[in-house]
């Protein structure tokens, strides 16, 4: 176990280096001269003079060769300095930090909501396979995975904010303002988790040890809750990283619609204005989070499931 953790941790620096290289490459191959973009942002509508562009290129360090630019960007990033926004001239790291809390709050609420419904629905569906309840749950999962979250978000706004006036449509700060975005964001992961849990409960219920549990006369309640569920939830834990990536991707659109002041709103604005340092910093930041989440998940799975410790699992 200890050796496994050490082995995984040892690969981290290399992966982080790779992530930073991908983020850096992403925007250094982008068309257009960042110096011109910055000058455009600061003086809209004016054609920047060649002298101003040259000066700006020097100021941004763009006159250095690419490898040198990367090394400088990298060493600053390691010290927590992700550069400054072209548009607002604010430090990127501070912006990312400020925007993290709203996004964490929203995605946590959505994930909680998704689990709250997906776990019982998945179990019910598997236990009553082929029945009416199963059909209903499968239909819900089908609809949930096909519905675009952005259209659902507008549907919710139209129904609950415009027609019924029960809840505020947009904004951030109160619990009531969180209800609609959390629901809109939870739908896709809910559908995904429901399918996953249904499949894994079905899988577990077909195992020999479940037959043994039934044969020794345990109630069905006991068999499912005590014997099947713990094993059936393992794949759901294993999917944490994937679900997280999904939630963060969905949050980009949902935050924009509900004017939620999180990371998603920041990246959309930055992508639209070609604010490269913000995009670069954000992509790196998220990749590191997902990487660490995957690592934590894999370690947690090994703790939860002793069988894995005897298998050789590739890193």
């Amino acid at each position, binding site marked *: 176990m200890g050796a496994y953790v050490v082995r995984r941790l040892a690969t981290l620096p290399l*992966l982080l280096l*790779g*992530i930073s290289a*991908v983020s850096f490459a*992403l*925007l250094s*191959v*982008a*068309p*257009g001269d960042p110096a011109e973009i910055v000058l455009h942002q600061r003086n809209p509508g004016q054609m920047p003079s060649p002298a101003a562009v040259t000066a700006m290129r020097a100021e941004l360090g763009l006159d250095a060769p690419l490898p040198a630019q990367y090394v400088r960007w990298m060493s600053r990033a390691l010290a927590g300095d992700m550069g400054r926004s072209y548009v607002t001239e604010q430090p990127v790291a501070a912006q990312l930090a400020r925007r993290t809390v709203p996004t964490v709050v929203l995605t946590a609420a959505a994930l909680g909501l998704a689990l709250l419904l997906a776990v019982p629905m998945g179990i019910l569906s598997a236990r009553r396979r082929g029945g009416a309840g199963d059909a209903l749950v499968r239909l819900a999962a*089908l*609809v949930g*995975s*096909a*519905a*675009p979250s*952005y*259209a659902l978000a*507008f*549907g919710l*706004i*139209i129904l609950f904010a*415009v027609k019924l006036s029960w809840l505020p449509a947009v904004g951030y700060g109160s619990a009531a303002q969180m209800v609609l975005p959390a629901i809109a964001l939870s739908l896709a992961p809910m559908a*995904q988790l429901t*399918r*996953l849990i249904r*499949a894994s409960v*079905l899988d577990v219920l077909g195992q020999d040890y479940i037959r043994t549990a039934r044969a020794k006369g345990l109630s069905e309640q006991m068999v499912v809750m005590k014997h099947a569920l713990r094993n059936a939830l393992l*794949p759901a834990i*294993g*999917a944490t*990283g*994937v679900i997280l*990536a*999904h939630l*963060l*991707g*969905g949050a*980009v*659109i949902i935050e*924009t619609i509900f004017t939620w002041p999180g990371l998603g709103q920041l*990246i*959309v604005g930055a*992508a*639209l204005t*070609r604010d*490269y340092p913000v*995009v670069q910093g*954000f*992509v790196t930041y*998220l*990749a*590191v989070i*997902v*990487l660490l989440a*995957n690592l934590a998940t*894999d370690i947690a799975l090994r703790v939860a499931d002793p069988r894995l410790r005897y298998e050789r*699992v*590739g*890193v």
Partner: protein
Amino acid sequence: MTMTAERIGVRLPRRPAIAEPRRRGRWHALLREPGTALGLILVASLLLAGLVAPWSPLADPTEINLPDRLLSPSPEHLLGTDHLGRDTFSRLVHGARATLLAAAATLVLSMTIAVTVGLLSGYYGGWPDTALMWVVDLLLAFPSLILALAVAGALGPGLLNVLLAVGAVWWVGHARIIRGITLGEREMAYVTAARASGASDRRIILRHIAPNILGPIVVLASLDIGWIILGIAGLSFLGLGAQPPTPEWGAMLSDARPHLQTAPHLILLPGAAIFVAVLGFNLLGDGLRDLLDPRIRRLAR
């Protein structure tokens, strides 16, 4: 990193489908499933709408007619008009064309990369395999929609740039899956036989392995279109994709936003169109998976 297959809900075929004697019977079975039949009908209608749109007698989807703005549905404008007086029904139908073309191009791009990387990696093994899979694992750490957003932002707005962006990030998970399948195929007797008869690596890959892994590739692709449509429409909604006046569903949603209170149907209609398209492709994909993967088919009974 091991959850690639789950990302798209794919149950991978252990054994690819090799021609069975009762093929006709199996295709009939596909249509007997009500869900799959519905999916086929939805997809066929969309394809038809997308194909005939430019030659249909519908109103010009880009013709601005300000006096007729935000009209309610009438015999002349079946679903009313938008904020610039353009016919909503016509824009929806033409939107099917834009969406399907963009999704198809994205799929071809991402599948080409995925199949190339997967086949080479799985067949040759060794250090190229290690290097390629290291890159794949690395890219898997980036949430795909966000990476696509960053790439699209870097390239600048436009539908072509969005499909390049989505295609460039979408192949990653599939490459890993196809590598896994290839790895299994490489050990099969038919590959040994081909090698013994003197076939080159190139010939073995293209003429022997590729046709045999076509089943799983089709399943992956068909389950993927829905996600791709959602992604492209989402990026268009954010303003990175189709630019005005192109009729595209995501862009229509974002156009209709300021009129949320007065004309909610302008938002709900393109939303419903995206939903129906994704649902159709997902249903069809599920049906194809069941058909091409006997193991799953048995489980479902």
